């Protein structure tokens, strides 16, 4: 079996209006790839049912190294936490091609 290496999975749930900004930030911090999809839910900034355009959420996931995950999380909190609906969480994952996720 192939060897597995530990990496971080960074999950960002945010209102869709800032998706382009977050993606731009991720690229600027050297992230090579990400996965995103539309999400629904409810939180302290209200019900985000996703039923029309001002009410949509996006889920963005990135696999990266510990240090990159820290950098991204700090940057996102500084830039968006105060004014936008956003939740960021980090979990441990194992990958088989560590060179892809720096």
């Amino acid at each position, binding site marked *: 079996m192939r060897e597995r290496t530990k990496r971080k999975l960074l999950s960002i749930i945010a209102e869709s209006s800032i998706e*382009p900004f977050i993606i731009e930030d991720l690229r600027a911090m050297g992230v090579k790839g990400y996965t995103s999809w539309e999400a629904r839910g409810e939180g302290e900034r209200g019900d985000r049912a996703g*039923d029309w*355009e*001002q009410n949509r959420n996006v889920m963005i996931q990135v696999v990266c190294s510990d240090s990159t995950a820290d950098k991204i999380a700090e940057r996102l909190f500084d830039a968006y936490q105060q004014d936008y609906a956003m939740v960021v969480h980090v979990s441990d994952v194992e990958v088989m091609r560590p060179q892809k996720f720096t």
Partner: protein
Amino acid sequence: MLENLLDPVVLCFVAGVAAGLSRTDLKFPEALYETLSIYLLFAIGFKGGIQLSESEWTRVIGPAAGTLGAGLVIPLISYWILRALGAMKPHDAAAIAAHYGSVSAVTFAVVLSYLNRLGVPAEEFVTVLLVILEVPAIMVGILLARLSDNSGPVRWKPLLHEVFFGKSVYLLLSGLLIGWLAGAERAAPVKPLFFDLFKGALMLFLLEMGTVASRRIRDLAKTGWFLTAFGIGMPVLSGAIGTAAGYLTGLSPGGTAVLATLCASASYIAAPAAMRIAVPKANPTLYLTASLGITFPFNLVAGIPLYHWMAQRVHEWGGKI
């Protein structure tokens, strides 16, 4: 006004609001909402473009200038009222002002269908006025917010991209251009889709907008009585400004009613998207509730007949002098 209430378009909106308030499980799939809004915006532009191709477009210059003036003045007046009378925070006032200066293309479609039903003609170039009115107020709102609170950098590039290449402006403009270039004869084969089916699609869209608006209506308790009064008073004032601008720049009574409605309508697609990025500190509940929960229903039910009445009166008085 009762006559207007029985228009199937207005009845659909009422049915949508009732569906939302009674919490039925009616929910348009997101893709259908998106499809209908793309169809409507493009069709509005396209139909306007075809009409434009048959008109002498130099006549549009005076009314276009008047429309642009109204688009710059209305957000300033709104801002002053919200700050001075409503004691609102500068960024909230600026964001709401941008919504009231900008337009709702759906309200425009409803006033055209209203005039059409009454057999009142309007100028062929009114769609151009719709496009002109969409952007300036958003820019004024952004500047007002920046002047009052200069904290933090603005990412102008994505912001300007959102304002000028947002889907509503793009669809209206490209539809207008395609219709204008193609002309009536070449557009004849697609007439069933963009002309004949238009009103039915508008009805479905308003059914959906009714359910969305009903959720904003529930937020009214949170936003307070001042915003409710503003959401009804401001369109009447803007409608009067639009009536004056239309009359002074030589529009017909029908064209004046359209311009008055355009000025009175508040944006709920382009402006919220731009404001969320440009003025993040402004509370979206305030501007969405005012624009979608109060002003949009008011215009559909009572505003449009009122603006038409204003336009008729002004032309009658003007004719006597």
